[in-house]
Every structure is written in structure tokens, then in C-alpha cells.
């Protein structure tokens, strides 16, 4: 199982995800459509990465969703997204909290693949793409927008419209997005004003007719600010006028999917990606799901879109021999066998254990912890690298690397940098790794002692100073102690497993 970058913070970039990490499916967008697609592809054992900023999903901004299947009491958007991410991670999807900024087609002989570049400089290589970037909220630049979000200022009519039943509301935007929101809001109130925040409106003919037909008011002109201290009260226009409303909905639209469309030459209609019944765009191997693929902007529909796109990606990748050897590594077809569903093997968390300059006491504590925990771990955790435990060691694609000991030589520094490159999460264990001491005691030797040890330092490739691990490579977490305590180690392990969606009996 790959480690989600959610636990590596917002880092991504130069070493969080290796340059040109290879995936079978890259899903652009971290909302309900993208995450649903990830659940399906990862569960079908396709190596899956989701690239997106969940905070940008419209679902994140939905205060309360009342019309999603299975939640009669409603569910808050952020909660639904958190659960969705954990769900996708549970099946092994990697979530890279970064923004995909470009996608290009690369041909490799007969095969083709895609390279997705991100805002923080990662490059991800994938055999198929699912674009689920939605219609990201573009900040309007209107004063007080951020301050009043959720306090009378909203982004999703179907989510938060019912709060304003029979009350006057404003919708900000000059395109079809605003018109569509206004029409949708008619279910709750008749008192609707669309404010262009622009000199003029740019509705398509269909929406122009709809707006007129339902008597929705329109007002051209720029908005200067939203007024209200604790709660939104009024829209202040640049001409100085102030228009009171009970609520305001942002519908400025954005061009999220369009950038990818331009890169890849995908067919668009009314600023929406054109897809077939399989959610495939005009380019083979590129699928689209959710708001960027058009139709109604509902979580339920977007979830369905994500599912349809994912199922067709699975079929697409399995039926054609593109790039990867599917027979290897137990890639099972994501089809239901006639005799009934067979559980697909879940990918295990790959843990490495490394040791540098120290007495390896934490290694000993670790081998003692195995006494009581190995039986509970063995179905979820594998330890492909631990010199104390095996001869055939593999440090590639580690989810967690535990590093014990201080860095005392150039060789050790090279090795720990190599580990960092291969590990999503690097955790320093024990006092020497965390603080350098006591292995770093030679740093504090007085002159005579320094002279005494100098020949040895010179003869081998000792570093001038012994360093704790975090001075050589970035460290994501630590388990201090000399040696580390069992409880401290288990707490840190549990924390990172939970972030990977594993809450089993640890």
C-alpha cells in the first residue's frame, strides 16, 4: 500500500512523491467524484493516485448535505470528504495534496501514457486519467468573502439553499453557473437576484430563457464587498449602493477542467468536458467525472460519475496490454466471478526498519513488541526492509521508514537520504536518531579527547559532527526515548496507520 501524502503534510514536491512516480490511474481532483473513482480503481488493485486539494472541493464548502443517500440526518461536506479520503486510502490509493496543473500525453512506442505535473513540482506518470477537478471555486476577490463563508455566504445551492426558504438571496456570477444555481434555488425561494460582479451577463441562450421565464432578478455591475460583522447582511456594490439579503451564493465558476482540456486537446461544450456513456472524453484513456463532466452538480450524481468512470478505466486498462504486467503482483480483475464476489486482497503497509550509529536498543524493543503484536499486524503490515530480520531487503516504495541511530559518517548520510527518497513517512526512533545523543557525545569532547579520536575519524569517512536524523533529511515524526518505549512506538504507529485508513485492532 502506498502512503497518502496527507500525512506528509502539504509537502509533496521534490521528495514527498518521487519525480515520475508511476501509477496506473491518476485521478485529478479530490472531491466526491474523484474519491469514488479512487475507491473503485484502488480496490481493483490498480495503482492509484489522487491529486487534488480537498479544501477546494465544493463538497468541502457544503455546510450540510441533506440529499445524499444513506444520510437521513444529513452530513456535513467536510465530514463526507474526510470519510471518502479514508475510504480510498483503505484500498491503497495515494492522495497527493497538491494541485494538478498540466497533463500531457507521452507516447512510448505502441503504448501511450500521461504525465501530470503539479503545482509543487511533482510529476506523476499514469496509464489512464480521470479528470474530476469539478468547477473549482475561484475566489471572487470580493472583500470579506473568506470571513463570511458559512455565515450567510455559501457555494452550494442544493446543499445550503434550504436554509433560506422563502427568504431573499443573491447569487454572484455572470455565467451559466450562476443561472443554473438560481434556477435550482427556486425550489426554496422566489426572491432571487443574480448579481453579475461584471459589467454584463454572459448566459447561454438556454439559461437566458430560464432566467427570464422564472422571474429571476438580474443586476449587472461589480461587487465591492460583502457586509456584515458576524453574519452576512448585504452586498455592497462599487457604486456605493448596499443591497440587503439573507444569504448569498457564490457562482463565479472557474476553468479547472479547461486547463487539462487545452493541454490534451479534449472536446468541450459549454465549458464542460464532453464524455460518452463510459465517462470517457474525446481522448482514449482520459475519463471525466463530476461537475467538470456536466449535468447536475449533486454529490450523488458525481459519486455515480466517479463510479462509472472508474469501472470503465478498469475495463480499459485490463483489456489492453498497456505498459504494465497485470499478471504480476496478483492484479485481480475487478469483475464479480459467477460464483459470487471474492474478497480482493488488501495491500499491506510497507514498513522498513533502519539503524545507524547507536546501540540498536530500539531495534531490540521493536523485536520484543513483535512478541505481542505480530499476529495482529501480519495481515496489514509487511516489513520488507529490516536487516535484523531478513537478508533480502527491499527499501522501495516504503510507506513508513523507522530510522534508529544518529548520522555519524558520509556513508550513513548517503544511506539515510536514499531511505528518505523511498519512504512516504520517515520516523526517527530513539534518542540517538531524535537528538543525536548519546552517540553524538564526541561532538562535546574536550581538546585532548578530540585529539585521541582524530586518527579514527580521519581513517574512516566520519562526519565532522554526529547529527540527529532531522539535520540530514526531513523527518515526519519521532519516537523519542533511550530506548524508545513500547507505548510511544505504538502510539505513533497507530496514528499513521489511522491516517492511512487502518484502524484495525492495533
Amino acid at each position, binding site marked *: 500500500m502506498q502512503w497518502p501524502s496527507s500525512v506528509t503534510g502539504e509537502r509533496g514536491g521534490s521528495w514527498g512523491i518521487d519525480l515520475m512516480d508511476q501509477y496506473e490511474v491518476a485521478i485529478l481532483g479530490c472531491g466526491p467524484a474523484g474519491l469514488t473513482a479512487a475507491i473503485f480503481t484502488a480496490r481493483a488493485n490498480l495503482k492509484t493516485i489522487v491529486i487534488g486539494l480537498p479544501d477546494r472541493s465544493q463538497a468541502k464548502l457544503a455546510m450540510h448535505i441533506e440529499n445524499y443517500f444513506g444520510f437521513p440526518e444529513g452530513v456535513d461536506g467536510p465530514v463526507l470528504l474526510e470519510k471518502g479520503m479514508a475510504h480510498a486510502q483503505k484500498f491503497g490509493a495515494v492522495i497527493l495534496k497538491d494541485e494538478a496543473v498540466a497533463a500531457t500525453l507521452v507516447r512510448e512506442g505502441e503504448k501511450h501514457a500521461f504525465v501530470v505535473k503539479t503545482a509543487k513540482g511533482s510529476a506523476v506518470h499514469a496509464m489512464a486519467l480521470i479528470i474530476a477537478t469539478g468547477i473549482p471555486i475561484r475566489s471572487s476577490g470580493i472583500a470579506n468573502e473568506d470571513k463570511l463563508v458559512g455565515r450567510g455566504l455559501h457555494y452550494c445551492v442544493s446543499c445550503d439553499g434550504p436554509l433560506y426558504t422563502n427568504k431573499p438571496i443573491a447569487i454572484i456570477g455572470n455565467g451559466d453557473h450562476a443561472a443554473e444555481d438560481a434556477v435550482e434555488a427556486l425550489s426554496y425561494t422566489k426572491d432571487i437576484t443574480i448579481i453579475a460582479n461584471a459589467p454584463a451577463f454572459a448566459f447561454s441562450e438556454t439559461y437566458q430563457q430560464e432566467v427570464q421565464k422564472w422571474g429571476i432578478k438580474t443586476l449587472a455591475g461589480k461587487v465591492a464587498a460583502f457586509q456584515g460583522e458576524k453574519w452576512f447582511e448585504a452586498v455592497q456594490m462599487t457604486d456605493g449602493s448596499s443591497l440587503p439579503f439573507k444569504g448569498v451564493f457564490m457562482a463565479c465558476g472557474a476553468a479547472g477542467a479547461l486547463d487539462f482540456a487545452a493541454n490534451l486537446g479534449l472536446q468541450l461544450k459549454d465549458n464542460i468536458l464532453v464524455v460518452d456513456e463510459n465517462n470517457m472524453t474525446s481522448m482514449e484513456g482520459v475519463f471525466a467525472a463530476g461537475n467538470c463532466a456536466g449535468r447536475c452538480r449533486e454529490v450523488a450524481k458525481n459519486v455515480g460519475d466517479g463510479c462509472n468512470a472508474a469501472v470503465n478505466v478498469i475495463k480499459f486498462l485490463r483489456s489492453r496490454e498497456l505498459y504494465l504486467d497485470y499478471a504480476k503482483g496478483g492484479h485481480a480483475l475487478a469483475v464479480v466471478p459467477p460464483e459470487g464476489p471474492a474478497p480482493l486482497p488488501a495491500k499491506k503497509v510497507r514498513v522498513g526498519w533502519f*539503524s545507524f550509529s*547507536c*546501540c540498536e536498543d530500539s531495534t*531490540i524493543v521493536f*523485536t*520484543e513488541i513483535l512478541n505481542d503484536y505480530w499476529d495482529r499486524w501480519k495481515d496489514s503490515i509487511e516489513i520488507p526492509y529490516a536487516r535484523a530480520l531478513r537478508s533480502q531487503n527491499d527499501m522501495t516504495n516504503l510507506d513508513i521508514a523507522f530510522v534508529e541511530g544518529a548520522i555519524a559518517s558520509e556513508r550513513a548520510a548517503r544511506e539515510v537520504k536514499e531511505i528518505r527518497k523511498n519512504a512516504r513517512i520517515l520516523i526517527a526512533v530513539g534518542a540517538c536518531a531524535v537528538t543525536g545523543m548519546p*552517540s553524538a557525545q564526541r561532538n562535546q*569532547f574536550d581538546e585532548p579527547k578530540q585529539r585521541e579520536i582524530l586518527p579514527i575519524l580521519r581513517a574512516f569517512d566520519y562526519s565532522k559532527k554526529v547529527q540527529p536524523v532531522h539535520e540530514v533529511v526531513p523527518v515526519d515524526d519521532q519516537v523519542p526515548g533511550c*530506548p524508545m518505549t513500547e507505548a510511544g512506538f505504538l502510539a505513533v504507529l497507530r496514528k499513521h496507520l489511522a491516517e492511512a485508513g487502518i484502524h484495525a485492532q492495533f
Partner: protein
Amino acid sequence: MHNFDITIENLTKMEGHADLEVKVREGVVEGVKFAITENQRFYEQAVRGQPLTSAPQLMSRICGTCSIAHLLCCIEALEKATGIQPTPQALLLKKLTMYGLMIRDHALHLYFFALPDLVGKDSILDFREDDPQEHKLLHDSFDLKRAGNLLSTLVAGKAVHAPYPTVGGFLRVPDPAGIAKVVAELKRVRPLALDLIQVFQKWDARFARDTEYVALSTQDFSFLDGDVMTSKGVCIPEEAYLDHLINVAIPYSQAAGFEFEGEEFVVGALARLNLNREHLHPQTRKDAAAALRAFPSQNIFHNNLAQAIEVLHSIDHAVELLETTSFTPEPVQKPVLTKEGTGVGVIEAPRGTLYYRLTVGRNGIVKKANIVVPTAQNQISIEKDIALLVQNSLEKLDKPAIEREIEKLIRAYDPCMSCASHFLKVKWVKGSPLGA
């Protein structure tokens, strides 16, 4: 096949870091370099200037797996340097502390490091759950290690860097409820230790070379006291041990090697069983009688069998001591600091004879430290064994198989690089990279 080099970086399933290079030219092994690459942490220098009360805990940090051996050996040297005679109860608690260490440490080596070679698996964690024998061995390993851990925790407070043993005695004594629990657990795992002996008794791995064996001859096989004995019949008091050792600089290794009176030699469980097996616990001698017939032995793979027998002995003697002793709290003895004093501590650590010589000033500050660890003593033998093993295998095995055999052989010694790479008052050989 007649010209080739073997290079293994980071040998596995042993404690610490070591590399190996073997050079074969015209069908002859020209050179073997067993290089301990563990960076030195300079504890001999670091302990100078430390108060004697904090020295044992500092020296415990030399090695995680045998920290208790360093702790107790350092305490012994400091007690001798400051005129402290341990009380009978303190001595007994030291023995129990050593037994907890031996059970856990040997079990780790036998199950985690050596057993995969025997079973033909890369790692004990790869043992099959659906194979009854492999399943049993994996879970036996957990049970035996845990039992040793429990014993150490009861007597010494912790299995690694134990807090209770100190200069002048123990800070606490075991409580009756804890004793009952540990005794019950030791009795429960005793059959597993017998099974483990059988497993290694049946292993046909063999490599023998004529050499000398050195160990303390303790009267109750408690790893703590007695004179140093050799297989040539030499008997040396603890204090004089270092006089018989010759420090050999190994320029490519971060640890020095040692010769005993000019010859390579072997310390460890094999040496102890070869020299002192009649002092094993009577119950151990009875129940491991068949296995004990393998000794004396020159087969280094019998070091594994010897360790398994020591696990049984540690259980048997610990149970007897715990069941027959009533412990009462007693004050920790104060060091007598009338003049500068030097003390020598020698104990049998899991991997062999461990030597501490410490000088303490009148102010209670450690002035000088000299330490000799087991792996440094075995280092030359390990190299000579590898040379012979490769030479003997050239016609029979291919290179990967030879590499596997070499690792198996080194593993049988149960070397500990963390320990080995500390102790040098090396008289550097002129012309070596370290030569002054």
C-alpha cells in the same frame, strides 16, 4: 571460478553493521576482510570524567541487545575499584538479571537470526502460518523472548538499559506476586526451550577448525564469576586476563581484533559449553543429556546448540533461585573513596567474555576505562574461518551459495558490531592507514 571477488555490504541478521570482502586468485583465497563498519561512539573516552554512579547506565548504551551485560560488568569493575563486596542477595539478583538477558538475547539470535538458515527461509516473519512446524517456531520465539523479558523486568526493572542494578546493590527487590507470575511463565515455556534444543541438535550444518576456546568457569554456570579458563588448560584470574590478550589492529575495520597469547581464539556459548558444561543446572544436564553429548565440539554451528542449552539452564536456575529465595529490601552499599582505585570486571556476556577495567579517582570520577568485548576477540577467528570455508567450497559451490554459507557461518558466531566498534587502545601497526 578461479578468480573472483565476493563483496557483501551490510551483512544481515546480526547485530550492527559489517561488510565482507573475499578475494580469490588462481583458485586460492588471497584475502578476507571482515570489516566492522559500525561507527565508533567512543564510550571509553566518554566515560572518563563521569561520576561512577552514572557510568554503568552510560556504558549500558554501548549495546542494546546485551546492555545488561555491559551494565553488570561495569558495576562489577566499579565495585572492585571502590571496595564494595556485593551482598549474597545482590549477587543472586545479578545472576537472575543475567538469566533474563540470556533467555531473551539467545532466543532472538536463535529464532530470528539463525533459524531462517536452518529452515531455508529468508526471515522468520516469512514462516508459513499453515505449516505446523513453522507456525510453532514463530510463536515459540515470541513466547521465549517474552519470558526472558519478563524475568529481566521483574528483577532489573527493564530488559534494555535496566534501571535497578547499580553500584553497591539493587534499587528494588522482586515482589512475591511478580515472582509467582514469572516462575509460572518460565515453567510454561521450558518445553519450548527443549524443543529448540532438538531443532538445533538435528541441524547438520558443520564447520570446524582447530582453535582455542576461552571462557569464565563459573561454579553454577551463572555467567558472572570464576577464573578465565582456556581449552589448553590455562587458568587465569579475572584481573590478569588482559595481560594475555594481544591487541591486533585491523586497518579496514572499525574494531580491533585480539589474539590470546599470540593465537586466534573463540569466546561465546560454544566455548562455555566446551569448558564448563559440567556446571550446568542438574535439571538441564538431565533433560539435555543427548544434546550435551555433542560437546566438546569444534563445529562453530554448535554455538547455536550451546546457546539453546544455555536458555534451558537459565530457565532452570532462575526458577530454582526464585522459588527458594525470600528477598528483603537492603540498602545500597556506598563506595569507599579513600584513594584512587582500579577494578576489573569480567563476565560472560551472551556472545562471550566481556572485560572492563576502570580506574576511579578519590573524587568518585572515572579516570580511565579499558574494555574488551567478545566480538573483537572472535574477529580474527571469523576471518580465518571464512578463508577456509571459501577455499573448501570453491569446487563445490557457486558464488551465491558460497556467499550464503559465509553469512551463515558469521551468524553462527552471533557477532555484535555495536559492541565491537568501541574499544581501542590500539597500538596501530606502522604503515596501516591508522598508523600514527
